[in-house]
């Protein structure tokens, strides 16, 4: 069954990624992040999102990509999944597109250095553009953080 759905397009290290629009709360410009000690390196800290304290993750370091300095284009995408509300720092977020499930293929083993388990598929759109769809529940999987914490301790 072919189904249409909307995704938010963002970039990380010159690759284009997508998150289903219904998982995204808002997209924010960069705001001061308060560091939280004793957390994995990819947890950048917490921000004040209109009175609510929200943790933010640097998606680059979450996926093991080299970190980069924030730019004018950097954005924080606030997503809600698994009962959690978390912000992702991305290089830029600039588009919303319509996709059809027919265009989505299973992800290859490794895409741009990101493990396949964090991906739900690869979609072709426009003229030869590839969009990598994130598997949010895996990205936000807490057991992995707990393992990291134990490893660090």
């Amino acid at each position, binding site marked *: 069954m072919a189904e249409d759905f909307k995704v938010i397009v963002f970039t990380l290290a010159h690759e284009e990624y997508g998150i289903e629009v219904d998982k995204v709360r808002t997209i924010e410009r960069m705001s001061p992040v*308060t560091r939280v*000690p004793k957390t994995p390196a990819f947890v950048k800290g917490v*921000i004040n999102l*209109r009175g*609510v304290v929200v943790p933010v993750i640097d998606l680059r370091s979450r996926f093991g990509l080299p970190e980069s300095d924030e730019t004018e284009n950097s954005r924080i995408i606030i997503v809600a999944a698994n*009962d959690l509300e978390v912000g992702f720092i991305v290089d830029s977020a600039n588009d919303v597109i319509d996709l059809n499930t027919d265009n989505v293929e299973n992800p290859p083993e490794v895409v741009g250095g990101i493990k396949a388990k964090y991906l739900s598929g690869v979609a072709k759109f426009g003229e030869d553009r590839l969009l990598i769809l994130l598997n949010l529940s895996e990205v936000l999987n807490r057991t992995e953080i707990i393992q990291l*914490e134990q490893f660090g301790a």
Partner: protein
Amino acid sequence: MEMNQYLSIFIDEANEHLQSLNENMLRLEQQPEDISIVQVIFRSAHTLKGMSASMGFEDLASLTHEMENVLDLVRNDKLKMNGQIFDTLFKCLDALENMVQDVVAGGTGSADVTELVSQLKQIVKGEPVAVASAGKAAAADAPSELELVATHLLLDQYQLSVLRQSIENGSPAFHVDVTIREDCLLKGVRAYMVFDALERNGEIIKSHPTVQEIEQEQFGHQFSVYYISRIPQQELQDTLDKISELETVKVIPLDLESLSELDGSRSAEQQIQEAVQQAAAASATAEKSPAKTDKPAAAEPPARAPTTAPVANKTIRVDIERLDSLMNLFSELLIDRVRLEQLASEVRRNDLTETVEHMARVSSDLQNIVLKLRMVPVDSVFNRFPRMVRDLAKSLGKKLDLVITGAETELDRTVIDEIGDPLVHLIRNSVDHGVETIEGRLEAGKPETGVVNLRAFHSGNHVFIEIEDDGRGINQPKVLDIAIKKGIVSPEEAKKLSDDEINMLLFAPGFSTADKISDISGRGVGLDVVRSKIESLGGVVSVTSKAGQGSKWSIQLPLTLSIITAMLVKLGSEKFAVPLTSIVETGVVRRSEIRDLHGSKVMEYRKSIIPVLSLAAVLDSPDYSDEGETETEMLVIRKGEKLAAVLVDELIGQSEIVLKTLGKYLTNLDVISGATILGDGQVALIVDPNALIK
């Protein structure tokens, strides 16, 4: 179900009415003559009945209906309250409560109430003529008339027929007449012993004055009972003679003839005199009693009256979640206010500054109101205790007064919801272990009625709740003994402990001093749970005690959980908040004063050696380290008895902060207990001082 929308209203109101029934019944038990209390009880029962019936809870309605019948008689002076009626009514309240709980849990609120209903019916039918007209009898002057009145006074048709039947069945019936010696100090106890002896060997049909009055010592030195015995006259006489401090014990056998005489109103002269005497004595002491009964009992009801006076406020019910979101929105407003103030000071336009200042004033008023909205009087927790203490005391055979003061003191709703269980535990503890048995108290030269004081009051940013009893106090040698036996302290450590430290051992996990485990307290799981609960609310619990004079348990609680006072500190570019409750002192320490001791840093503080921690090291501060400093600012923090110095870069100052959680994604951060948003919109993390001291 279209009724659903009314169900929550019904539950709330039913609980309120049950509470008021409970409270007023207790008051009535203290002052059985006060008909105005009966009126209040009657009205509550009546409303409850109406509500239950309209909601279709038949059993609730039928039970309240029967209670109402009994109360109606009392209110119209046709029935006098006595111990049995009180007990039955209290049982009914329990049953009602269970039914309402069932409704809360989604049940149908049905229960088997036939037994209680029939008991109530018996009360209504059984003693309708046993009127409290003792005074009337005394007032009548002609003995010939008295004859009629007196005998009818003493026994009604129902009781006569019971006596008659038992004689016909061959069990002897007696009229027992007891006079207590004039110099007896505790006539209530002696009377109780007589009743106890009688009840062990038979059944009391009627006593005059009523058991209730005798228990409260509202009688002269004489009382009489009609009694069906299982033992012969001589044995009964012997049993009663063994009780000391009795002047005379007359056991007069009743036979069918004397009964019919009684019935026929031609009683022996002696009995008339008795009746007159008793009546006179009863009415005389009843009048005098408020002035001269035992001190605590008499002094207490007036003291309690003002606190239990119903507060007839106009209120609406609001979902606590709405209050939470109001609170959240308000804290956003606060942050914007600070931002505006900053901008206004940069722009320097008079009218803007004025407007912003006005807004600041309005918003601080608003803050007070928003905070107040979440406050609930502790009364909503305290109100269940009088009943609990009464029942406990009865089951333990102790005499107890619970004196509540400061029930109007307000606490945050969240605290109120959590504080109930620890308090129940501490009060049970006081009643069970603290206050001695009647005999024990008499031996120790104390009044036989123990007093448990339950106090709540404000002090600074805290609310204190104290539970004080005048019991035997904490047996410190025994506490030490058990603590050593259970391996909580070593014998060497034990020698160094101060009195207060020994008392605190009671809060250690797995500690119980009770010789025998009762169902009331003493399972040894209690006090450490109490402590951890109170500490989780940001409070502190402590106990002081004087052997033989009682103990005082003191709980210190923060006024509110959502806004706390904190010390803001700086570590390089980062700001952190430390709750003020655990800060003992702030100061400056020179690097040279910090010494190394077995690899850990310590310093001297008020003649004791305390560990020194570097907050920058604990929190992995990226741009500050106190290694290079010659002089460092520090906080002295406390956890229980332990102190520690925490080195920081700079103290910013005290501030009221709004507590926020870090969300579910970041948990298990033991050093960080939460976050707050500062005036500039930045997030500052709150350091948990308890996690710093290991």
